[in-house]
């Protein structure tokens, strides 16, 4: 077990180094620099700025000094916001994205899994059709359409939900619905098909034959064995959702990390982009590792240390 985790951590670190390298050089190959403006600044000023941030040095020197800073936990200064470091930006914008993301995941699981179970146990009944219809529809609507539709219906027309900010619980409803709509539908469909598959297995018949209550059959035998695909899907989803969504944060004016993803690329804010990429990739790798460990917990037949 410890051996397995150690192996995986080493491979995660190698992956992260590869990602940092690829993104660093890709980003610097994008034409234009961080100080190019519509109103052209005098060349001396640009040269002075580039010297200040060491952008005039050869690329490999910049790369080495960036890695050195990273090892010390310093992601460098932002090129667009004078005096603000990337660590500051992440520290300030992470909480909002994190809160929205966690609420979204909880909402996806609390609604998606029961909906899937209901749909599977009441197969081909009206409730099953209703859930399948809604979840199929939910998978077809892009998040920017869903977000604007929700605002239009609940805020502009019905006036029952606030449009922006994160002050009360009401402020979470629409952004989380927009962010989680697709995943919720996906989880519901996933749970439905895997519970149906589990219910057709022999051990379910055995359990019923020895008189186990239907509740126990469903939750102890069928559900546990159908959680594997759900965990596989939700693990990486947590990493993606927690780092914020550009569209949802823009539409609902949430001060989160999502907007920096797009802004940092268009502004050539190299260090901010690198910081966000590293954070995102590290979270994703961590989530995948946790998923692998959870497999063993859900299904003891899967042993992580082969």
């Amino acid at each position, binding site marked *: 077990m410890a051996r397995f985790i150690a192996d995986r951590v080493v491979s995660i670190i190698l992956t992260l180094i590869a990602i940092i390298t690829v993104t660093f050089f890709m980003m610097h190959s994008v034409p234009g620099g961080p100080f190019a403006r519509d109103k052209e600044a005098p060349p001396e000023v640009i040269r002075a700025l580039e010297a200040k941030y060491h952008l005039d040095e050869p690329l490999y020197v910049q790369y080495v000094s960036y890695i050195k800073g990273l090892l010390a936990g310093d992601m460098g200064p932002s090129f667009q916001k004078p005096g603000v470091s990337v660590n500051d930006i992440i520290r300030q914008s992470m909480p909002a994205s994190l809160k929205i993301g966690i609420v979204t995941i909880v909402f996806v699981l609390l609604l998606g899994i029961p909906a899937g179970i209901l749909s599977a146990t009441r197969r081909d009944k009206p409730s099953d059709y209703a859930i399948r219809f809604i979840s199929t529809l939910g998978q077809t609507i892009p998040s920017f359409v869903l977000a604007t539709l929700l605002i239009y219906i609940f805020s502009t027309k019905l006036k029952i939900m606030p449009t922006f900010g994160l002050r009360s619980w009401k402020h979470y409803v629409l952004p989380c619905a927009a962010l989680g709509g697709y995943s919720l539908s996906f989880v519901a469909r996933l749970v439905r098909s895997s519970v149906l598959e589990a219910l057709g297995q022999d051990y379910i018949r055995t359990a019923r034959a020895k008189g186990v209550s239907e509740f126990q059959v469903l939750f102890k035998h069928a559900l546990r064995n159908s959680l594997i695909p759900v965990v596989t899907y939700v693990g990486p989803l947590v990493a993606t959702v927690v780092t914020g969504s550009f569209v949802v944060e823009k539409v609902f004016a949430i001060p989160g990390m999502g907007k920096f993803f797009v802004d940092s*690329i268009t502004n050539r804010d190299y260090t901010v982009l690198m910081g966000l990429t590293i954070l995102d990739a590290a979270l994703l790798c961590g989530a995948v590792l946790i998923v692998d460990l959870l497999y063993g917990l859900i299904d003891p037949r899967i042993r992580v240390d082969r």
Partner: protein
Amino acid sequence: MSATGRLDKSDRTLWEAPPPESKSPEQVSRPSMTYFQDAWRRFRENPAAMFGLCLVAFIVILALLGPAVSSHSYWEQDLNRTNESPGGEYIFGTDSLGRDLFVRVMTGGRISLLVSVIATFISCLIGILYGGFAGYAGGGADNAMMRIVDIIWTIPLMLYAIILMVWLGPGLHNILIAIALVYWVNMARIVRAQVMNLKETEFVLAAKVQGAGTWRILTRHLLPNSMGPILVTATMMIPGAVFTESFLSFIGLGISAPLASWGSLCSDSLGALRSYPYQLFFPAAFICATMLGFNFVGDGLRDALDPRLRR
């Protein structure tokens, strides 16, 4: 009859000779079906899949013929008739510059569909070859190739698409390249898994014994036999590409005016959403219908091509 009540098989009087016309056991009673004819038969019997196919066909025909039957063009402005409601002369109304929204949505559909189909095709091609070689080669080469796939998978794909778009600049070709270069990873994984399963089969061994080379085994034996999962994945990739294209256009990195795609039309409509919600509704409805259609077709294909998965 014997005393035990069972049939006595030696009792010849119980047996009749078969009629002469059925004498040949080799005779095939029905024409044999190929794999794809068989799949098509199952696909046809699936109402949801056929509905999806009709929906996709309907949208494609609308996008192809819509601009031709309308008397307006997608760039023609009529500043006296801006933001007109749907109905009347303009079926879908007009936008803030007085352009016919119907024609714009149809032309946008051409671009969205073209981009997603071609991007899917290119990324399938890359994914199939990459995954095929990795799976067939096995060992160290496979390990190295799959590590690269893992690394690409770990970077947020949308981020790569955005970097590529900024690098290449907005435009039809570049959107295509960006989507294609980003989404081949899934296909590579699926093809690799298929090829790894198939390469141990007897017919591959037989081909090797007859002296077939790697390329021939890959293209003639392994890939055709993985066609089912490949087709299903490809069908599911098209709606994904529509999503990505509309997202890129939505954040302003896609098609530039006066051309339009469904995503850029949605994005254009946001400013006036409160007053003219129909300007968002029509392109959004077409995105949803396309997604729905392709999803149904994909589900139907999976059921039809792999009967074992049917439930």
